[in-house]
């Protein structure tokens, strides 16, 4: 490695090529290789040996964390499979990874998986978008007018502590046993938390900074767009992340109640006919979809942050 670094001005590319030919690569040199390639492309300043060692250490650590994470996942499902196969656990009650794969294949072949997933996804997204949008606007209204905020505060507090599932029967009677009722359920669950979180973020804006802009003659709208909104950005993103989880809860809970279609319906159905394979499979699919949506929000955060 020392030689590589010493020579890396002229013969670097050749060296890398040579290295790649050798299939036996230690992790360190592989990482080293990558950094060299990168620095080659972007023409970054050359790092000292100590700094490279430091970078390697960080990468090794990350690699270790990911490695353990994957190991835990494999061990969990592997152990599950083994225990069921050896008869320690009853496959009928606990299902097993292989049975789940079979169920997943069956569900995909019949098209049921796609239909039900799309229905639930649609309900979740609708609830998420509507509730976040309206919640945000209400928070802006409450921030901009202290009197309205004081009037509405007790109602919001009561609505927040009310378990929304209790409104299930009312919602079904008012909106019919269908998509509408499920979306309304999702909206009710998401919107109050959105209002409270975003309003708090707005109210926590540094008073001195607001005063400084006021002294320059800023009006309420300018204060909102130039200080309050940008400084609340991290809190707004974390609210979005919370809302992803809450809108899934809303959609699944709604489907439990309405019981017509969707992944929540499949879960209820699986429970009724004692089909644990179906229940476990749907749960895994739900996990996958929910984390996908979460990562999309995280991606959005990265994009917006990079722009500003």
């Amino acid at each position, binding site marked *: 490695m020392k030689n590589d670094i010493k020579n890396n001005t002229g013969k670097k590319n050749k060296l890398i090529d040579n290295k790649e030919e050798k299939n036996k690569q230690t992790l360190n040199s592989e990482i080293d290789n990558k950094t060299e390639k990168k620095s080659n492309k972007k023409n970054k300043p050359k790092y000292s040996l100590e700094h490279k060692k430091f970078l390697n250490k960080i990468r090794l650590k990350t690699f270790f964390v990911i490695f353990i994470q994957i190991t835990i996942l494999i061990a969990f499902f592997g152990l599950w499979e083994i225990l069921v196969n050896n008869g320690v656990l009853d496959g009928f009650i606990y299902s097993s990874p292989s049975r789940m794969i079979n169920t997943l294949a069956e569900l995909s072949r019949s098209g049921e998986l796609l239909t039900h997933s799309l229905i639930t996804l649609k309900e979740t997204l609708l609830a998420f978008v509507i509730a976040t949008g309206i919640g945000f606007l209400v928070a802006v209204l409450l921030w901009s007018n202290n009197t309205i905020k004081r009037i509405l505060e007790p109602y919001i507090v009561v609505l927040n502590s009310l378990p929304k599932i209790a409104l299930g029967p009312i919602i079904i009677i008012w909106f019919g046993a269908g998509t509408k009722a499920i979306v309304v359920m999702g909206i009710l669950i998401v919107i109050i938390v959105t209002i409270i979180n975003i309003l708090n973020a707005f109210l926590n804006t540094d008073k001195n900074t607001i005063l400084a802009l006021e002294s320059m003659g800023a009006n309420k709208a*300018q204060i909102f767009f130039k200080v309050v909104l940008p400084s609340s950005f991290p809190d707004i993103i974390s609210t979005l992340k919370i809302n992803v989880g809450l809108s899934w809860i809303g959609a699944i809970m709604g489907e439990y109640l309405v019981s017509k279609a969707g992944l929540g319906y499949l879960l209820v159905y699986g429970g009724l006919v004692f089909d644990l394979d179906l229940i476990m499979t749907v749960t895994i699919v739900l996990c996958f979809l929910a984390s996908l949506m979460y990562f999309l929000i995280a991606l959005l955060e990265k994009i917006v942050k990079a722009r500003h």
Partner: protein
Amino acid sequence: MNEIITVKDVSLIYHSKKFETLALKDISFKIEEGDFVALVGPSGCGKTTILSLISGLLTCSSGEILVNGLKPDKKSKVCGYMFQKDNLLPWRTVEKNLYVGLEIQHTNTKEKKDYALSLLKKYGLENFKTKRPDELSGGMRQRVSLIRTLALNPKILLLDEPFSALDFQTRLKVCDDVLKILKDEKKTALLVTHDIYEAVSMADKIIVLSARPATIKNIHTLTFGRDKTPFVRRDMKEATDLFQKIWSEIQDEK
């Protein structure tokens, strides 16, 4: 010289649910264009309140204030306000921070922007214009904050303990810089400070306030070392004497 700020018999009462507080009582003073005036007094006596009244952020309960011949209005653009905290927006670069005031006043023209940048260059911060505020030292941030205020080209600068968040060495340095900037740009300034030495080393005139409710206890006009920097002036014999005098005036109040 012209009188640019006239404060006449001004009183102010702060109201809250449980009690009212008389913060200022019959305050009268005048400031001439180009003057550097310092307000000193026991802590909590209402120094900042006077700045808020002049900038139009507060309205007085009785009395009259004229700024540049008119009633104070925060939209009037006559006053620039500089606070203890620099209040730079952390998500904007130094350059974009300079434009905040211009954007607010809808005077975001190329000409004004260039003026702001020229100030930045003049006071040695040009290389930092693409940096974020948190990459700057405290002294640099405070100078950027001053340039942001100056970019609006106010006639009067209200300085509310602008150096008290800085460490001692930086404070001495920034004091010199700020006074030079203000004198160069020919601004009238009103400085609130709890640091008597700061007042003695920078001001042309020092107004000493009493404890709450604040009244004017004394007004000192400074004649020594006006061509010197605050750093030099601070150590002059006259400065030390005046410090002692003001110190005992304030001590009487406690």
